[in-house]
Each structure stands twice: as structure tokens, then as C-alpha cells.
């Protein structure tokens, strides 16, 4: 089907993009992680570099990616530098952190103002409460989701899901490929 191949090409580009950046990020850790324990060093390193990579493919446009990058910048600045490149990183760093902090502050104020205790048992309000619950859960899931209104929340979720899929797909292929290769090696000996 032509349509599916059209989707596929843009997805493939995304994947290649992601992969390249991920590799760049992994190089940062390669010297440290040669003989480290799995859980403490290597897994977070891999995951972080993957996250940075996937966020950077969407870097300018979406809020979740900005939030993710800002978050990682706080702890692993070097990694982000490696993946992004020097100049962009400097520009991005201050901008991102300011942006996200401002948003968080604003949203907390708004939330406080709007809390009004009510006792209603109409079905519509129950439904609304349910939706609100779900929305807050979604916000907690999404990086940087706290400071978003509903409209942009849904938009960001869309984008985030797509990027997560790309990430998962590439990682999965890599894992399977490496598994296959190690299997072949064992078989040959």
C-alpha cells in the first residue's frame, strides 16, 4: 500500500536520526562502562542516551522534548553536549530550564486558584471528574506535562507516542540483532 510506505519513509528517517544520536550519546559512556555493573551504570546510561537522542530529534518543536532535555541537562550535561553539539547545547540549556520552570510555576498557581469544593452527583460532572483524573495521570506520565492545557496535552501525547514507538522499535531491533549475533557466535564454537 502506498500510504503505508509513505508513513514508513518518514518513520525510517526518524529512526536513523535517533540511532545516530543515540550512538553519539553512548560514546560518552563507553569509557566508563566497560566493566561496570549492569543496573547502576550501564542501563541508565543506555536509557539516558536513548532518551536524549529521541528528544533531540524533536527538539525545537515539542514541549515534552524540551522538558526531557532540561531534565537530563541537570544531571548529565556532558551527555547532552555530546549528542547535540556544543553551540546548540549552550543555547538550549538556559532556554529550556527557564522555560520549564516558568511553566511549572505558572501552572501551580493556576491550579491553586481553581480548586472549588463542590458536591455534585450529576452524571456529567462525574464524567468530567473521571476525565480530569485521567488527564492528570497523563500529565504525570508525559515529561513536562504538568504545565500544559488540554489541547496541547493531547498534541504532545500524540508526538510523544510516536517518538516512543520509534525509540522502542530501534532498541528492540538492536537487542534482537545482538542476541542473534551472540547466538551465531556460540553456535560456531
Amino acid at each position, binding site marked *: *500500500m502506498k500510504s503505508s510506505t509513505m508513513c514508513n519513509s518518514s518513520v525510517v528517517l526518524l529512526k536513523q*536520526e535517533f540511532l545516530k544520536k543515540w550512538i553519539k550519546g553512548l560514546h560518552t559512556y563507553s569509557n566508563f562502562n566497560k566493566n561496570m555493573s549492569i543496573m547502576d551504570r550501564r542501563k541508565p546510561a543506555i536509557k539516558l542516551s536513548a532518551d536524549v537522542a529521541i528528544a533531540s530529534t524533536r527538539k*525545537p518543536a515539542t514541549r515534552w522534548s524540551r522538558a526531557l532535555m532540561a531534565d537530563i541537562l541537570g544531571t548529565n550535561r556532558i551527555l547532552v553536549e555530546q549528542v547535540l553539539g556544543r553551540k546548540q547545547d549552550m543555547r538550549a540549556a538556559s532556554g529550556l530550564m527557564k522555560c520549564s520552570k516558568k511553566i511549572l510555576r505558572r501552572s501551580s498557581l493556576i491550579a491553586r486558584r481553581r480548586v472549588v469544593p463542590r458536591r455534585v452527583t450529576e452524571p456529567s460532572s462525574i464524567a468530567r471528574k473521571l476525565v480530569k483524573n485521567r488527564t492528570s495521570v497523563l500529565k504525570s506520565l508525559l515529561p513536562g506535562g504538568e504545565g500544559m492545557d488540554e489541547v496541547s496535552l493531547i498534541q504532545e501525547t500524540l*508526538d510523544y*507516542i*510516536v517518538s516512543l*514507538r520509534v*525509540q522502542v*522499535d530501534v532498541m528492540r531491533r538492536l537487542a534482537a540483532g545482538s542476541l542473534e549475533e551472540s547466538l551465531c557466535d556460540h553456535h560456531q564454537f
Partner: protein
Amino acid sequence: MEPKVEATQPQFRSGISGANPVEMGLGFDEIHGLISAAPGTGGSSFTALLELPPPQAVELLVKEDFPVKPMPPPIFPSNIALIDRASKFSVFASADNSPESTNILSASSSMKLDLVKQEPLESDSHPNSSSPAVSNQSLKSNKRKEREKKVKESNKKSKKVVANEASEDSGEKLPYVHVRARRGQATDSHSLAERARREKINARMKLLQELVPGCNKISGTAMVLDEIINHVQALQRQVEFLSMRLAAVNPRIDFNLDALLAGEGGSSIDNSYPGTFAPSIWSEGQINGSRQHQYQQPWHFEGLHQPSWGREEDTSNFITPETSLLSYDSPANSASLHSSHLKMEL
């Protein structure tokens, strides 16, 4: 294809790490319909159409500059056409008017062909993210309102209270939305804005529903949100799990970046053994190209991995692991090419 999917289904369920089985079951129905390429019915083309808008719409909604490689960006005419289709689907999913919807479906399927032909002709220059996104959204909402109003008119044949000046088709270049109040509804600006906002939200929810597998059949915002949350959580868990797995599997660390980037250009190197690997795990790239499938494929992996090991061991006798990973010609598997290098780096 079909029996294979059925047979491997129970294996997937066992191999899942905390996924939602209901969600997966629904997803497999979708795969079913999409894999069996035989039907040329309106149903299958509809699902194909449904596939197209959300991922493309997502791309359109958040369009930005790639520092490394330019992505083929959508040009504006195709944007509008695409958004029109998406909006039409969103409208007619809610309306109960079947003859009209089938008319529009046929019209939009022809539109889809035009769009698909247009896409390969896209240029490499991309616009900035902010302005197209904004104008896209305003265009989209504008067009959507026009369509919705037309539907409502034809359905209800009611009088309209014109609260704002409504521009029929000249609203393409306006940066704000013209809204019409429907019959029997308040016309002050607040409720209008409220309604516009709600419609925006609903349209995006529709897109989300199409993206997340298994959400199409659910009605009700809370349930859909539930599914979406499950989906996002499952994906995040997958990332965690995969990163742990990758960390555990690869003890070696080597540098092969140059070869990797060079190899990317020649990813379609050797197709000398495509047939031998057809049944193997990488066949997922050939089975389908849609993103939804690629989501479902991860589950496909877990179950399929065990039985196909034996087969791979046999065939890999005369194929080095590297060429084996190179032999998948579909562009989606260029990632598989890199895996052979990347795993050395890990």
C-alpha cells in the same frame, strides 16, 4: 500470513512484560485486517486511510528542522488536503449519516491518491516550525468548522445564528477562526470560544484514537484516555526493559562509528540471502510498513524469537552475522544494519 499470526498470538501473551492483553487483542484484529491485503473493500481502504492521517498529521503538527538530515516536509496544499481528510473523518465518525459518509469516503479516497502522488514531489526546504504549525492549526480548525457546519446544516436544516462573520473559503489566510453558533446554543463569545476549544480537543482526541491501537471501538473520553495512558505506560516500560536488556547482553565496547555512518549509505548492500531470512525475525519489516504494525511487532518478537532460533542457527552457518544483518533490503531495516556495529559499541 493469517495462521501465522494466530499461532503466534498465545506466545506473545506469554512473552509480554506487563502489557494490557485487552489492548493487544484489539490490536491484533487490526493487524489481521491490514495484513490480509486481499480485500479491496472500502473497509480496508478506510483503515489504510485512517493510518495515513494520524502519523502524517503528527508530522504536520510538529514540523521542525532536522539538524542532520532534511526530512521531506509536507507542502501546504497537501497539508490542507490531509487535514481536511482528517477532519472529515473526525466529523463523520460522530455523525450518523451513512450515505453521506460513504460519499465523502469515496471522495477522500480519491483525494488520498492525489495526496500520495504529491508527497514524493516535496522539496527539501522546510519552513520554520512555529508559523506553519500555527497556521496549520488555524487552517485546520477553520476548515473543520466549515465542514462541520455544512454537515449540521444538511442534517438538521436549521436556521443558523450568525455570531461572527463566516467566511466560506477565503479563510485560508486568516490567522483566526470563524465560528458559527448552532441553533439553540448560546452565542456569547465565551461559550463560542469554549465550544471552539472543545472541538479542537475532540479533533485531536480523534487523532489519538486512531494512533493508539484499539481505541477506535471505544467511545467516551475517559475510556479512551485510559487506553492512551496504558499505551504510554507500556511504551515507557518497554524502553526501560529494553535498555536493561541491552545493558545486560553486550559486555564488549568497541568503536565503529565511521564504519557505521559509512554503512548507512550502503545499507542495501547484499541481498544475496533474502530468501533464507524471510521467515526470521526481521521479516517484520516486510510484513507491513505501518507504524501501528511496528508497534505490535515488538510483541511479535518475543514469541517468534524462540522458535526461529533453530532456523537461524542453521542458516547462519554460511552467513556471517554481519552480512545476515545486511541482507534486509527494506529501508526500515537499515537500523538492523547498524545493530551489528552498535552492539560492538555497547
